[in-house]
């Protein structure tokens, strides 16, 4: 057995899978770890790399060339691989392709097996049922395989899109697909993600029906939807801490619900703490933020600030207007947040006007605020520039009608 495809297959698999993988020497493709974006450059390199590796692999330039041309078949063939090992000598190369977890390696290697594809398909058909069981046995393997599957389906997609290969069509169409929602929409997902690099983007979604699947539009759409759902669930899995150990959609959904509830409770609790701990004396804020900022970025009295101060008006009559008056200036000034220091300083001063009525304190505090907060958010000038662009949509709402803070 030659050419083990990557290291991914052995990672999550059961014993027999890892033994199958370990039995063959390692092909170091080094592309497994990347996600789908890796695929962007892979296909272009795939032909060359495939030629090199498969030369090593088979010593047959004909194989390499065919491998480079032909697309791989479906990667989740690990159950089928067991059967394929029983096959005649060309099969060992084919078995590499069966381990979809090998990612790119398997993609290229499996294309070697295309000449033997007809035989494989016969075996693969038989293997469909145990394939389902195998899937159930190694669910973790399936998730790690999915990456490889995506890559393979991308390769499939590209090579089909290039249009000149009818032979990959045949093995693809004959592929026995297990009934797993993970793999089903893989093509769709891969297509959606990688429409750009190699071929002109298609405006319709190109889903290829697998063997054993219904080909009517409803089930295709169903598969698309299921694939999208699993994709989103993966994103959520990354967001929610501790969700990695949980496998299965129902349990993960419970975890997600618990996490959202706990975050909402935390917001409630923190707002209570904010209400009690900080009795809303803004007298301390300038000093706190003063310390905060001066260590952070140093006093930077930028010309931006003077520009803003010249632009904006300073109404002291109603506090609500204080922030509103800066809204029209948001558009022409760089940074929404540089308004914050002005706004808050005005708020503070207005508050003091209510409470203390000391003009000296106002002036002093205002100077502190101006330097502090403006230097705070001066850092985020670049970022908030984009935010400033999106902010007008909200500020439009603010301006229309009565501007009451929305509590």
């Amino acid at each position, binding site marked *: 057995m030659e050419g083990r495809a990557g290291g991914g297959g052995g990672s999550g698999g059961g014993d027999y899978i890892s033994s199958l993988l370990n039995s063959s020497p390692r092909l170091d493709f080094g592309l497994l770890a990347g996600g789908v974006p890796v695929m962007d450059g892979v296909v272009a390199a795939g032909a060359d790399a495939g030629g090199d590796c498969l030369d090593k692999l088979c010593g047959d330039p004909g194989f390499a060339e065919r491998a480079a041309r032909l697309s791989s078949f479906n990667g989740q063939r690990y159950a089928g691989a067991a059967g394929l090992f029983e096959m005649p000598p060309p099969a060992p190369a084919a078995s590499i392709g069966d381990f979809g977890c090998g990612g790119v390696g398997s993609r290229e290697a499996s294309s070697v097996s295309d000449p033997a594809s007809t035989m494989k398909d016969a075996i693969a058909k038989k293997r469909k049922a145990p394939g389902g069981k195998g899937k159930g046995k190694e669910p973790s393997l399936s998730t790690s395989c999915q990456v490889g599957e995506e890559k393979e389906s991308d390769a499939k997609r590209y090579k089909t899109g290039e249009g000149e290969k009818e032979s990959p069509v045949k093995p693809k169409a004959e592929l026995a697909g297990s009934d797993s929602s993970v793999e089903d929409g893989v093509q769709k997902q891969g297509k959606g993600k990688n429409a750009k690099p190699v071929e002109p983007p298609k405006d319709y979604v190109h889903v290829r029906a697998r063997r054993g699947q219904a080909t009517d539009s409803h089930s295709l759409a169903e598969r698309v939807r299921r694939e999208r759902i699993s994709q989103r669930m993966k994103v959520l899995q990354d967001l929610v801490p501790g969700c990695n150990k949980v496998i299965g959609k129902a349990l993960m959904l419970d975890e997600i619900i618990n*996490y959202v509830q706990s975050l909402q409770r935390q917001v409630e609790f923190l707002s209570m703490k904010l209400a009690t701990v*900080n009795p809303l004396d803004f007298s301390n804020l300038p000093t706190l933020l003063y310390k905060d900022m001066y*260590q952070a970025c140093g006093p930077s009295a930028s010309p931006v600030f003077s520009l803003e101060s010249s632009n904006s008006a300073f109404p002291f009559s109603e506090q609500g207007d204080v922030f509103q008056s800066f809204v029209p200036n948001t558009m022409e000034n760089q940074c929404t947040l540089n308004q914050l220091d002005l706004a808050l300083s005005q708020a503070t001063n207005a508050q003091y006007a209510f409470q203390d009525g000391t003009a000296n304190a106002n002036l002093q505090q205002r100077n502190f605020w101006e330097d502090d907060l403006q230097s705070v958010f001066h850092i985020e000038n670049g970022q908030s520039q984009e935010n400033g662009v999106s902010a007008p949509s909200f500020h439009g709402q603010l301006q229309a009608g009565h501007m009451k803070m929305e509590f």
Partner: protein
Amino acid sequence: MDTKSTPPPRPHQIPNPSRPDFLACWAAASPSKPMLAFHFLRALSRIHGVTTVRRRTRTIRRAAYSSMARAASPRRAWSRALLGQARARRSRTLTGRAVLLRRRRITAAAPPQPSSPASRSATIIAARGEISTAAARPLPPRQEGEPPRADALRRLVPGGAGMEYCSLLEETADYLRSLRAQVQLMQGLIDLFSCQ
């Protein structure tokens, strides 16, 4: 001189408020955080008049959600739903006699009588419009592969009632990110205020 003394922390690492540049580093970590801080701090500065702790708690909580919604992209359904809820709440409180009283309180000098009927009818119409549009939406979406726990998620995420399961998951992810940022901000502010 450098604008930043330390590099921004990793996204999941909450900067320590006792560090001198906490707010700057935290806000620089992701593009939506400065807007969050801006709106929330502005809201906080307005909550000076409410004296009872309970009411202030409620107000701060609503301010937190509103600032979350403001900081988020308006493409997000949950942010639109949150802002719509806030607006409906305000117009609810402003119907009827409350309008009269509030206008009398705010514009003490101006005679309230001529202005209030027009504004009251305007707010009532606005409230009715919002409520009607809100009521028209929650038609049950297609729930083919949807697990039964999904309706709990719909209740949790604002605006989740009228969405398909697929988009519900996407909204949940964005909502979670925003919630986490809000919690980090509030926690940091509390620490900032308390350790003086």
